[in-house]
């Protein structure tokens, strides 16, 4: 259980965040400069807050009012940086075992072979970290933090420095780490896909303040408008249930209370929950149930809010029974359809526009 409630002023920027979460992955989400990394540094002990506290399983790591400050080296919190920061003078194996040596003997519960196997780095152990690729370095860095048997693992945009291919290679590894080793994780990112895929709890930070906390669908939908600076970044997160996988077409049918969502590929067993990210610019609106059209996913709901931005209107649709969906259309289309708050609409989107690689299930 991690509890954070801290305030810090750095120049003109003021940070004031509070959140708490129990198990699984807590994601700190926000644009760069929002204060996520400051928060992470306070938790790790690299920065001292002006006021407030950080508690881990009830023990204060820092509590300004009570004068408590546990130094970094005694917090037993693993930190993985954006660039892996491996020790260049040590071998990969020595890097991996570095923190283990400092962990109290009774707490060395994480097994070297299990970590090496999970992260797929068995063939790297005798190499020098200077001869590894970016993705390999990051895997070793995660292993190194994990093998220090931390009470909490902090991942500070661990994929930001990697290309798309490497990201897709490492994301499932982080999922495995989450599921196989019983270590709570705080994951800092500004990528919705990563957060939706990994996190059970999302803390959205903007301008040094917590804007929204909750499971990914809730947190993102509550903060949808303010979080996106331009329309291409606007998206909604929907929670659905896997209904069936159509082997013939390689598609998976997801059941949402407002309709059906089709995604490419397979997404787990029937009955398991899945989260889908839908970009607002990919959504088409219709007043009648659509027929004879290639878009396969149709959700019904009614208009809850309309925001204008020059010729563009962003419409928030309250889906039937559960969830919200954003749709970006032109002002002209809005007038033609005569949409008003409360109007019933059907929202359509193409299966091909959904990134099935970002669909994941947090084992909450």
């Amino acid at each position, binding site marked *: 259980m991690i509890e954070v409630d801290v305030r810090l002023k750095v120049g003109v920027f003021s940070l004031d965040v509070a959140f708490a979460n129990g198990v699984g992955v807590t994601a700190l989400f926000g644009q760069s400069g929002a204060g996520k990394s400051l928060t992470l540094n306070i938790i790790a002990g690299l920065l001292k807050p002006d006021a407030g506290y950080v508690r881990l399983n009830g023990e204060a790591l820092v509590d300004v009012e009570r004068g408590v400050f546990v130094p970094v*080296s005694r917090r037993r919190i693993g930190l993985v940086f954006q660039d892996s920061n491996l020790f260049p003078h040590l071998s990969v194996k020595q890097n991996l075992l570095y923190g283990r040596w400092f962990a109290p003997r009774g707490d060395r519960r994480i097994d070297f072979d299990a970590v090496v196997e999970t992260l797929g780095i068995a063939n790297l152990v005798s190499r020098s970290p200077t001869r590894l690729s970016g993705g390999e370095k990051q895997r070793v860095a995660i292993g190194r933090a994990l093998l220090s048997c931390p009470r909490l693992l902090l991942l500070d945009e661990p994929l930001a420095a990697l290309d798309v291919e490497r990201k897709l290679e490492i994301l499932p590894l982080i999922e495995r780490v989450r599921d196989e080793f019983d270590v709570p994780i705080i994951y800092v990112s500004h990528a919705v896909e990563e957060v939706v895929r990994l996190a059970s709890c999302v803390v959205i930070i903007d301008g040094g303040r917590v804007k929204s906390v909750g499971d990914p669908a809730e947190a993102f939908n509550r903060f949808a408008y303010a979080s996106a600076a331009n329309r291409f970044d606007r998206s909604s997160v929907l929670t659905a249930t896997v209904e069936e996988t159509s082997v013939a077409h390689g598609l998976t049918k997801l059941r949402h209370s407002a309709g059906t969502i089709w995604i490419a590929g397979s997404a787990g067993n029937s009955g398991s929950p899945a989260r889908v990210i839908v970009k607002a610019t990919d959504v088409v609106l219709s007043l009648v149930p659509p027929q004879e059209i290639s878009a396969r996913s149709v959700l019904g709901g009614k208009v809850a809010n309309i925001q204008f931005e020059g010729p563009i209107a962003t419409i928030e649709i309250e889906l039937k029974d559960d969830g919200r969906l954003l749709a970006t259309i032109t002002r002209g289309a809005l007038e033609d359809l005569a949409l008003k708050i409360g109007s019933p609409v059907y929202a359509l989107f193409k299966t091909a526009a959904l990134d099935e690689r970002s669909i994941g299930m947090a084992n909450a």
Partner: protein
Amino acid sequence: MHDSIPFTLFELSPAEWTAIRLSLRIATVATFASLPFGIATAYALARCQFPGKTLVNGIVHLPLVLPPVVTGFVLLMLLGRKGVFGPYLAEIGIVFSFRWTGAAVACAVMGFPLMVRAMRLSFEAIDRRLELASETLGANRLWTFFLVNLPLAVPGIIVGAILAFAKALGEFGATITFVSNIPGETQTISAAIYSYTQVPGGDESAMRLTIVAVFIAFSALVASEIVQWRAEKRLGHGE
């Protein structure tokens, strides 16, 4: 051994051998004795914030900019028989004046700024995030120093030590002022060359010692290059 070399220029006389051996001993002792202090000072200047840091930095570098004779005279006033600390040190059996140990002190002081400079650069070049990584893995600052800073600074430390060693071999002004020029006790290669040039017929000896000095200095430079090159190869290109 030197008898077997037929060329008279390289037949070093016992007095010349004495000066060479003495020089090497003084320079070695001066270098190794100042090494821990040099490392500590360089690390403190590179990584720590403390009151009086600018003053410490100034004092360390003073021998580099002062005339060596002035440094020698200050040492005489501080550690000489009638100096500020000299009499107290003499009571516990430590005497520097007119002893080879005094020459080592003078050489250490003169070489110190060079040593600290090279080491400090090397400490400053270490990525701070490696230290942070070490601390998050449970190593306190002392462990981090020995496991991260020190090994990564080794090339700079060796270069600093070699520079100080070379400086100690060539030191003249401060040494001669502090402990004089006594053959067999404080007469280093430099002092011996100076003495030979002051007497008629001493040119040949001065020449031989000059060649020896050039040889030693050149070896030191080559050694430092090899150390640098090997360290760079081992650590890859930065990380």
